[in-house]
């Protein structure tokens, strides 16, 4: 176990007054995995680096693009065309020279199309073992399910966030309940919900993930109103619906803006997620149970247990 030097303790004085010396030591001895260095995850990485995290691994198969520059705090114009994870290391290291940084290959953790080329489930499970917390941004349902399986094997906390323009969500699976995985929660039939009290965004997310199924690029799936209505019928079986809680146009907006971020939302959600990560590491308080819905237009961020 690494100990906190006097210099580091002095630098982190204001944070130690919140998390305690022991808490700060736990942060120094933790390892977080961030998958996809989007604007939001770049803010998470930045806050964790400044917060004195010991080790961070980044996975991102994508390259830095012009679009990254509007909200990704770790990359600049000179990084365009370079791998987004590798491009992020420089600035992170500058902010915290003591932070141990690493990148890993997407396929160290996830499966390829061609099954023969996959790493074994054991090797993927071994890979996950080294982390304390895993956080992924704007994933497909397949990615979340795969991570859920691996994380539950080794009791690793999984955080999922999704941004679509002004709307966003955070979901946390602390491995406390196998019935509360992302897949199960997202497929909750409406008979188990108080429809009037449940956040509108939940229904949009539900329909989004159910309709896009296992497609790799949910943002480019052709959504048909009939198909969506059918899904709504299945979800709302044995429920007397006075009014459908979500319109087809809401779902289209969500899909069209999937992965569209702005610096304000990235900063807010990145701040919330990094705080949940530090709270979980220090056991300062229980993590959000289990959803947070944020709408940057109205300004409300609500926690709901679904």
């Amino acid at each position: 176990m690494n100990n906190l030097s006097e210099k580091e303790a002095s630098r982190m004085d204001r944070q130690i007054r919140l998390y305690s010396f022991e808490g700060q030591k736990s942060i120094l001895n933790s390892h977080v995995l961030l998958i996809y260095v989007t604007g939001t995850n770049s803010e998470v990485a930045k806050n964790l680096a400044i917060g004195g995290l010991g080790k961070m691994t980044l996975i991102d198969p994508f390259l830095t693009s012009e679009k990254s520059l509007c909200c990704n705090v770790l990359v600049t114009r000179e990084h365009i065309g370079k791998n987004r994870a590798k491009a992020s290391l420089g600035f992170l290291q500058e902010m915290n020279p003591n932070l141990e940084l690493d990148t890993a290959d997407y396929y160290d953790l996830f499966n390829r199309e061609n099954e023969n080329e996959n790493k074994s489930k054991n090797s993927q499970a071994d890979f996950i073992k080294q982390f304390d917390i895993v956080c992924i941004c704007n994933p497909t349902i397949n990615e979340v399910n795969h991570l859920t399986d691996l994380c539950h094997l080794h009791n690793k906390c999984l955080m999922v966030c999704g941004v679509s323009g002004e709307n966003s969500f955070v979901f946390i699976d602390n491995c406390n309940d196998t019935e509360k995985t992302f897949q199960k929660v997202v497929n909750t039939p409406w008979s188990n919900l108080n429809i009037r009290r449940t956040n509108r965004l939940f229904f949009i997310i539900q329909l989004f993930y159910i309709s896009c199924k296992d497609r790799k690029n949910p943002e480019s799936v052709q959504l048909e109103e009939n198909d969506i209505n059918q899904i709504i019928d299945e979800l709302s079986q044995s429920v007397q619906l006075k009014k459908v809680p979500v319109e087809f146009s809401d779902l289209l907006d969500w899909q069209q803006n999937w992965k569209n971020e702005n610096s304000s939302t990235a900063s807010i959600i990145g701040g919330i997620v990094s705080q949940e990560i530090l709270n979980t590491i220090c056991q300062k308080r229980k993590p959000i149970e289990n959803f947070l819905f944020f709408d940057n237009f109205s300004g409300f961020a609500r926690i709901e247990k679904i």
Partner: protein
Amino acid sequence: MEQNKLLLIGVGADIGKSKSQVICERSKRFNGSAKLVPLHCDIKTKGPSFFSQFSVVITALDNVMCRITKTPMVDTGSAGFNGQVEVFLPGLKCFECTPIQPPKTYPVCTIRRNPEKMVHCVVWVKEEFKKEFCSKAYDSAEDEQSGELLFLKYFDQGIKDLLALKDFWKGKRKPTPLGNSKAFLNEKKEKTEKGQEKNDQPQEMRIFEPQEYATLFLKSVRELAKNRVQLRNPLIFDKDDPLALAFVACAANLRAFIFGITMQSTFEIKGIAGSIIPAVASTNAIVAGIAVKEVTNVLGWLKTKKDESCKSTWVVIPPKRILLQPFRLENSNQKCLVCKLQCITFKINQ
């Protein structure tokens, strides 16, 4: 120390430079074509003509000039996990419309006679520090004995004087005077587990035996008296001055020991004495993100004069179900002495 809270203050090489300069230099990486002008000065030196040139001002404290020039202001603040962003538009509620809670004060009797918490001890010590080191200059002849004399005054005779008020102590736990410093230091105490636990913590986070605080108290008084003589000027209490902090921590802990209050580490006492507000980068990032959104709302308001989208927001610790709570902008308090025209009647007693 700010490196923990602020993104753009760099490591190492940037320490010592002006914050505004470092922020401007580092922000260029995000947008090379933005014009950023650092100004390293006291904001109170800037007049209405300075503020009139801006569409909106973002602050971390109230600014009177914004009200005078009717410049919209987005005010931000954070403390620990809480934070807020308040938008002040000309014509609507100003910063002074809602009276601010005055700083917490304690009854004089609690501070001087019967402290019950560490904070009472700290407030008392700070008052004594001011009396002893800040209001007069000593000559060198007095400082040789100053440690012993102060020890007796604070922890022996001072306590005996309090105990003389016999009626006051009926039914209350009486404080125990320590005697003179030599006698107190000779008292052999069995080593408690407290001293041996958690040895990996930095010095300032550990809690020591009262005798160790007594030794350090005597030493710090000697040093403080010497400094006072050398400088020929009264000292000021500065929580970042290790000597002043040592004096306050030792004296507060000895007073606590006398009154049966649990002693605390120098780290914790520094927080109390310096009114240190804890901070984390994540909360500041949330507040900053909200502030940026409100600035864009304000710029929209400047065009259309419709304030429907501008709002103030509170950031609240979970487990409350609402983490970010927005509020509609309020109208001015009609009785506000600052933003409303008011007539105040004075009566002069002749």
